[in-house]
Structures are given as structure tokens and as C-alpha cells.
């Protein structure tokens, strides 16, 4: 009898059920999409923040002092220690390699450049542009094109295996050179594939594949420093602790958190004789920006949840209120308060489950659309969220209809049936 009551109610009052169901679906859609965006926003903004540049720097452990002013390197080129290029792919073998979005080795060399009749002493910077590197079975591409995304080239980027170079913008103006020209560097003919504009010291330099710089320096495999761009977690007091003073479990927790410090520590482990350090200007500030944006979106998600909860409650209250006559009839026929209430709550549960499922599906679609439109990457909602969202939908639907049901059940059936109040 109970099941039949509920079933018939759904069959005969399609319009009302559809309205209430639509409200629940809409509410759950908005809630799901916002939760999806809120859980993923940190990662998405973190990736956007990588435009500001690398946040970790790896240098040789026993290096001498850098003597560099305004992009001009005054340190004797063969002075100091070097890292070995062969060790670099090991970066992909560290614990947090999935968080490392790219790295670029640098090797500045002092050279003499000739173009037409002009001779100039300047720095040639060897680096990776977009080099394919393999570590174990994995193959990945890295270089300045991903770590230094603000570098702009008019012309084409050189191939990492070629002998093509980029000329800094200001240098090119001084030499009145353009893409496609040939320049002579220490007697070597080089093809200029493009003009580089960075707004920094590189505008006065030549940028070349690292192998070329190593050849000029006469030190195969030498790397002066490596810029590493990593997705990190905002630093807290725990992050700043010294790993050497930690005990086993605490150390493991520190090691397995993507703090700038712990990733630097792991880079140091991976590359022999190296020293890794966070670039504080980038690493320190991104934590603050990230925390602010995440906090903002979480607060807004709360507002969205509130708005959708109210929408669902309002729709349910209206739906119950419209059915006072029905309740009056049930009571007149001898149904107790409990029996009436349980019919309505069963209906509410059913509606919440159907609306919740549909809303979850729509919400996932919506989140995906938002991710695609704004961040050009996917926002996925973990399926674990489904039971939680369904639970919340049922609770809110209950809460929304509870007051209305209680009031309706308490009414005298005579008044209800006469349509008064």
C-alpha cells in the first residue's frame, strides 16, 4: 500500500514532481560544479603561476661566487664547478617528478662575435629549448619554452641538436642583424634562426643549444645551473624545519609533501654534488597568491551551496504546501501523522536521489566546461564525491520539506479539505 501510494503520487502528479525534481537537479548541479572547481582551482592556478618562472635553482655544491652585473658575466668561464648534464634526467626520477613541470639547464660562456664588420664581446648562453629527454621508459620534453614562457621569439626556435642560435633583441638591433643571418662566434659559423625578446639580460646575449656552448667552452656535459619549475604547496612552519633533525615518521611526512624545501632536498639527492635552493621571490609569493585565491573560491563555493540548499528547500516547501487537501484526505480516512509524514519523506528521498544523480552528472559536465573554457584543461570530479553529494541532497530535501510537512500534518483535515488556510 505504502509503495503504491508513493508510486501513484509520482505517476499522477508529474508536473509537480518535475518542478521539485528540476529544483533539486539544478541545486546539485551548481553544488557539484562549484565543489569540482574549488577542489581543482589550487592546481590550476599553480600551473598558471608557473608563467612567472622557475621556483627552484640547482647549482654545483662547490661553486665559486657568481660575478654578474646586468646579465654580463664577469666570472672567468672555466672558473668554478659544473654540474653534469648526464645527471639531469634523474630529476624525473625523484619522488615529486609529477609536480616538476619542466627544467632548463644554463651554461653561460664568454665569446667574441663577428657580424659584418662589427666585433663584440658578449655572453653566449647555452640551454635546452624543447629537448626530448628519456629517463627509464619515460620520454619527456623540457627546456626554456616551458620554464621561461615569457621568452618571445620572432622567427623560429632553434632545434636542440642544431647549430642554430637566437640573438637577443637589443644585440640584434646593435648589429642590425635579423633572423636568417649568419654570425661568426669564435670562428664558428652560426645560423640565426630567430630574435629573442625577454625583457631581461638575455636581450644582450646569444642563446644557443647547450651542446654548442659546451663545445665552445671545451667541457662536454658541463652545466652551470639548472632552473626547475615545480608545482609546490604553500610553505608553512613544518616546511621550514631542518630535515636532519626529524625522526622517521615526521621525516617521511616532510619528504612526501611537495614543499619547495622538500623538492629542493630531493633534487639535491638526485643530482650528485649539487645544491638546490628555492628562488624565494617566486616560491615565497606564489604560496600567498595561491592561498588567497583558494580561500576566495572556497568561500564562494559555500555561498553556492547555501543558495542551492535554499532553492531546493523552497521548491520542496512549495510542493508540500500545494498538497494540503491530499493530506487532509489521508487524515480524514484515518492515516496517522506518522503514516502521512513517511509517505512524504519517502517521496522526498526518491526525488532527492533522482535529482541528485542527474545533478551530479550535469555538474560534472558543467565543471568540465568551466575547466575547458577558463583553464584549457580538464576539471574532473572524483566519483567518491557522489555518495556525499547524494547524502547532502537527501538531507537538504528533508530539511526543506520538514517544516511544511509538519505544518500540513498538524492541520485539521476539515479546514484543509475545505481549502481554507
Amino acid at each position, binding site marked *: 500500500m505504502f509503495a503504491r501510494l508513493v508510486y501513484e503520487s509520482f505517476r499522477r502528479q508529474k508536473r509537480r514532481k518535475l518542478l521539485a525534481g528540476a529544483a533539486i537537479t539544478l541545486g546539485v548541479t*551548481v553544488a557539484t560544479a562549484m565543489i569540482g572547481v574549488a577542489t581543482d582551482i589550487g592546481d590550476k592556478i599553480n600551473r598558471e603561476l608557473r608563467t612567472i618562472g622557475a621556483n627552484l635553482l640547482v647549482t654545483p655544491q662547490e661553486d665559486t661566487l657568481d660575478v654578474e652585473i*646586468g646579465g654580463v658575466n664577469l666570472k672567468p668561464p672555466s672558473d668554478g664547478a659544473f654540474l653534469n648534464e648526464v645527471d639531469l634526467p634523474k630529476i624525473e626520477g625523484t619522488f615529486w617528478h609529477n609536480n616538476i613541470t619542466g627544467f632548463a639547464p644554463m651554461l653561460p660562456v664568454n665569446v667574441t662575435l663577428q657580424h659584418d664588420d662589427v666585433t663584440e664581446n658578449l655572453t653566449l648562453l647555452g640551454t635546452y629549448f624543447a629537448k626530448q629527454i628519456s629517463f627509464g621508459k619515460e620520454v619527456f620534453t623540457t627546456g626554456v619554452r616551458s620554464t621561461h614562457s615569457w621568452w618571445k621569439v620572432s622567427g623560429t626556435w632553434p632545434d636542440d641538436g642544431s647549430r642554430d642560435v637566437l640573438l637577443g633583441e637589443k644585440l640584434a638591433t646593435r648589429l642590425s642583424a635579423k633572423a636568417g643571418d649568419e654570425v661568426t662566434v669564435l670562428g664558428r659559423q652560426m645560423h640565426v634562426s630567430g630574435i629573442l625578446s625577454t625583457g631581461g639580460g638575455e636581450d644582450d646575449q646569444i642563446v644557443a643549444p647547450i651542446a654548442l656552448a659546451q663545445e665552445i667552452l671545451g667541457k662536454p656535459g658541463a652545466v652551470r645551473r639548472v632552473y626547475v619549475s615545480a608545482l609546490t604547496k604553500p610553505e608553512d612552519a613544518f616546511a621550514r624545519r631542518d630535515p636532519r633533525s626529524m625522526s622517521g615518521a615526521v621525516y617521511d611526512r616532510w619528504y612526501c609533501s611537495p614543499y619547495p624545501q622538500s623538492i629542493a632536498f630531493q633534487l639535491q639527492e638526485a643530482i650528485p654534488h649539487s645544491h638546490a635552493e628555492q628562488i624565494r621571490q617566486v616560491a615565497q609569493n606564489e604560496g600567498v597568491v595561491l592561498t588567497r585565491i583558494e580561500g576566495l573560491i572556497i568561500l564562494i563555493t559555500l555561498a553556492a551551496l547555501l543558495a542551492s540548499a535554499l532553492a531546493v528547500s523552497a521548491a520542496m516547501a512549495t510542493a508540500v504546501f500545494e498538497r494540503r487537501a491530499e493530506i487532509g484526505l489521508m487524515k480524514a480516512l484515518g492515516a496517522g501523522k506518522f503514516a502521512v509524514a513517511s509517505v512524504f519523506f519517502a517521496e522526498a528521498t526518491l526525488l532527492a536521489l533522482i535529482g541528485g544523480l542527474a545533478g551530479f552528472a550535469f555538474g560534472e559536465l558543467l565543471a568540465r566546461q568551466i575547466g575547458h573554457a577558463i583553464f584549457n584543461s580538464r576539471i574532473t570530479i572524483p566519483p567518491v564525491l557522489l555518495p556525499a553529494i547524494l547524502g547532502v541532497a537527501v538531507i537538504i530535501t528533508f530539511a526543506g520539506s520538514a517544516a511544511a510537512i509538519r505544518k500540513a500534518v498538524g492541520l485539521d483535515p476539515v479546514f484543509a479539505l475545505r481549502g481554507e488556510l
Partner: protein
Amino acid sequence: MFLRMLVRAAVLRRGRALSALFAMVVAAAVTTAMLNLYVDVQAKLRREFRNYGANIVVVGRDGASLPADALSHVESVLAGRGLVAPFALVVARTGNGQAVVVAGADFDRVRQLDTWWSVSRWPSAPQQALIGVRALSAVSPNHQPFDLSFQGHTIHLMPAGTVQTGAAEDSRVYLSLADFVSWTGVQPSTIEVAAAGSTQEITAILQQLGQAMPAAEVRPVRQIMEGEARVLGKTRATLLSAAALIILTAALCVLATLMGWVFDRRRDFAIMKALGASDRLLNGFFAAEAAALGATGAVIGFVFGIAIAAWIGRVNFHAPVAPRFSVLPFVLAGSMVVTLLSAILPISMLRRVQPAVILRGE
């Protein structure tokens, strides 16, 4: 009579009227808060981005010193819209002949501009130096006083503390600008500028600086500007889509509640009609009621919304979001449209029905 009908209708059915008003207030509050945040969040985030330091650098052409009045030029162009710090750089020799980059800086300005510098102790007296962590072993391994020489001039310095940034600063020695100039005679060659404002304002500042100092090269720090623009753009877009979703949900919530309320009063409607009220009067009555509800709800909601936005600003950005009264007309108009819509839809449905049918309760 018309007014009395309006007031009595609201007073007699207090419960339903209040719940409709409540829905309206919540919707208006959420909308106000979202619009306020959307307008204000850009300014708030820009402030956070200024912690990244300079977004404009003024340097002498080809490494030359800047003219002596450069700093005052920059400050007059900026007119308080940001921070400025001059730097002078030379390569000096330590006691044992090692080359080291020595910089002159205004420590008070640097502290404000470069907040990420991790400094053990800032120099407070003349002849004190701030030493980069990597330079420390070459210059003053045991924190003892040391000498630096530049073109035959020697300066005797006391180490005050160390600076760590993870970048070029780590290999340098920093002195106060006064000590630096009297020792080397070299004037500042770089001025770092952290200009506050929108992209257009900063572009304007860049142009003005270029015009004010033709002898210097003025360039934006591109990675900071681009990163900032990207993050702000994405955050605003996310906020906009969230605001659209929330406002839509709130509007539908109001629509559902109000339509239920009006529909519930079909007996009032039928009685008025049976007593001879014209269609125009009835429409006017329900429309006036809806508009009054919308306006009251919007105003109360606006106040709450401002409070919510201010609270979010305080919690998240540690600065209140200034109330934007320009948002009020939009909230007011939006509320009226939604309430009118939710009154007119059921009325136009009821109008076609005979009063007798409604009064019989069918």
C-alpha cells in the same frame, strides 16, 4: 483602499509573505556579495602580486649610472602609487683578491619592496654590510670585519647579517647607498619600481617614465606582468562563472517561492474578480505587491550582501571589500524583474479560469 489591500495582504499571511521575503533577501544578498567581490577582487589580488617586487626596472643605458635626479623623477611620476628602490653595483675585490659584486641599496626601501628577502639582521649603522649567504665564506667566514677595495679605494666594513634569496643576491655584498657612493663615487644604475594599478595604468607609468628620463632605459619585468595578468584573468573568469551560477540559482529559488505564494492566493484573486475587480486592477495589485516585495528584499539583501563581501575580504584578504553602491541599481532592477515575473506568470494562468471554479476549490 489599494494601499490597505497591499498592507493587509502582507500582514494577514505573515508566514508566507515572510518566507517569500526571506528568499528574496537571500538571493539579493548573495548577488550583491558576488558582484561586489567580482568588482573588488582584482584590486585585492593585484596587491598580493606586488609582493613579487618590481614590475618595472629603470636602468642606465649600457650599464651607465642614472642621472642624479632619476630617483626624484621616478617618484614624481609614480606619485605614491607604488614603491621605488635604487641600486648601484660594482665589482670589488676582497682582501685576498677575489672578485665580488658589491651593491649599494637603500635598506628601508628594499625591506618594503623585496619582502621575500630572508635577512638575519638588517644593517642599522653606517659601515655595516649585509652579506649574501654564498658570498659569506669568501668575504667574512667568521663574521669578522673585512675590507673591500674598488679602484684603489678601500672600505672597512662590519658584517651585520646575511641575506638569502636563492638568486643573484646570494653572491653579493650590500652596503647602504651613502657608504657605497662615498666609497666608490658610483651613482645608482638601477631603479626597481613596483607600480600599483591596472595594466593600463602601468603601461601609462611606463610611458611617462620613458619620457621623463630619455637617458635611461625603462622596461617592464615581463614574467611578473604576464604571470599576474594570466592569474588575474583566470581567477576573474572563474569568479564570473561562479557568480552567474549562484545568481541564477538564487533567482530560480525566488521564482519558485513567489510563484507558489501567488498561486496559493488564487482564492483572494477569485473573490476580487467575483466582486467586480477589473483585470487591470488585479494585475496592478499583484504587480505592486511583487514590486514592493522585490524592492524591500533587494534593499535588505544589499545590506547583508555588503556585509558578507566585507567579511570575505577580511577573512581572506585581511582587508575589507569596499561597498560598491553602483551595484545597488542592478540588484534592485534584477529583484524587481524576478518578482514581477513570478507574479505575472501565475496570474496570467489564473485569469483564464472562472472565479467560481477556483472558489469551489477545484
